[in-house]
């Protein structure tokens, strides 16, 4: 994707959009988290991502350094489990971007982020966590580019669709991780806040990509989603 200056601008636009979106969704995320958690997800995330956006606002760094700074700021500002899960994973995955933002490095970033979340949270698909949105999104993105040969913008649109399905999938599940797991069966029927905020973040990444990858035709984005491995995985997790 374009030159280093444009990449930097895109990353700064993305973090600003994410911060704005999480601010807008603060009450909604808090509402979801009051049902099955400690009611701090909305305020923690909006505060942390705004602080991260402010921290890098006028940065002249390369994208990997900017993304790393975003992660480090989130770690110190978000609090709760979201600090290490979002911030720690962004910080760790940022090293995949040392060659800048390309289709290849963005896949590596997504995979590294997912791997860190799985490792840190000790979660799996079906445990009613952000992993349920993140896993299908990362798999779909990778498959769309590497197997279906689709352009990154289209792949990202499909990844967002997959994340949406993942968020819906969390509703009927019993929580196995986090504060919600203490509620046992009472967690069933509620949408997971972490999966939801993960979807919001991805939607803003997509909106940013649409802005910066305009040259790519988005005709493909309207094409039907091809069957892939995720529905099987979703079925498997439900057992």
């Amino acid at each position, binding site marked *: 994707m374009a030159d280093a200056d444009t990449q930097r601008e895109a990353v700064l636009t993305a973090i600003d959009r994410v911060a704005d979106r999480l601010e807008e969704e603060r009450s909604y995320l808090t509402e979801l988290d009051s049902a099955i958690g400690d009611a701090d997800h909305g305020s923690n995330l909006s505060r942390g991502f705004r602080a991260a956006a402010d921290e890098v606002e006028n940065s002249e760094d390369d994208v990997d350094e900017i993304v790393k700074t975003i992660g480090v700021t989130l770690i*110190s500002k978000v*609090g*709760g489990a979201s*600090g*290490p899960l979002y911030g*720690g994973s962004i910080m760790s995955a940022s090293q995949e971007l040392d060659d800048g933002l390309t289709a290849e490095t963005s896949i590596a970033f997504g995979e590294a982020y997912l791997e860190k979340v799985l490792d*840190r949270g000790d979660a799996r698909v079906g445990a009613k966590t952000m992993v349920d949105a993140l896993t299908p999104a990362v798999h779909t993105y990778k498959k769309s580019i590497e197997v279906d040969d689709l352009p990154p913008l289209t792949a990202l649109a499909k990844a967002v669709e997959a994340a949406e399905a993942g968020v819906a999938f969390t509703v009927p599940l019993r929580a196995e991780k986090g504060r919600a797991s203490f509620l046992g069966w009472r967690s069933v029927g509620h949408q997971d806040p972490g999966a939801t905020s993960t979807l919001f973040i991805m939607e803003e990444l997509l909106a940013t990509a649409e802005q910066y990858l305009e040259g790519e035709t988005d005709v493909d984005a309207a094409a039907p989603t091809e069957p892939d491995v995720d529905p099987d995985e979703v079925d498997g997790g439900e057992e």
Partner: protein
Amino acid sequence: MIGLVVVSHSQKAAEGICEIAAQMGGDAPIEPAGGDDGEIGTDVTAIKDAIKSVDDGDGVVVLVDLGSAVMNAELAIEMGDTDAVIADAPVLEGALNAAVEATNPSATIDSVVEKAEDARDYHKVN
């Protein structure tokens, strides 16, 4: 001497657990890292600072309560340069055991972790 850090979502709980543990393991350096800016939560920076403050070079064992305490402690250890290990133990009983073992002249990180983890098997009512 092995240092100890008690991480809890509550500042009061972390401090109280340190008090109880210090009563038995008086000489062991033990530091609470509780709460997040005065609220219920855990704070990676506070944990990192606490680990550093009790490290005299022999290493540190960290006791934790729930979920994010574990993750933030892991992250604090990764971000710092102290040889520190999280004990997979109940926070209060583990801290007490660890404090007693830490005062043993031949204590190592492994022996302190092992004693802390012995507390997993404690029964309170038979």
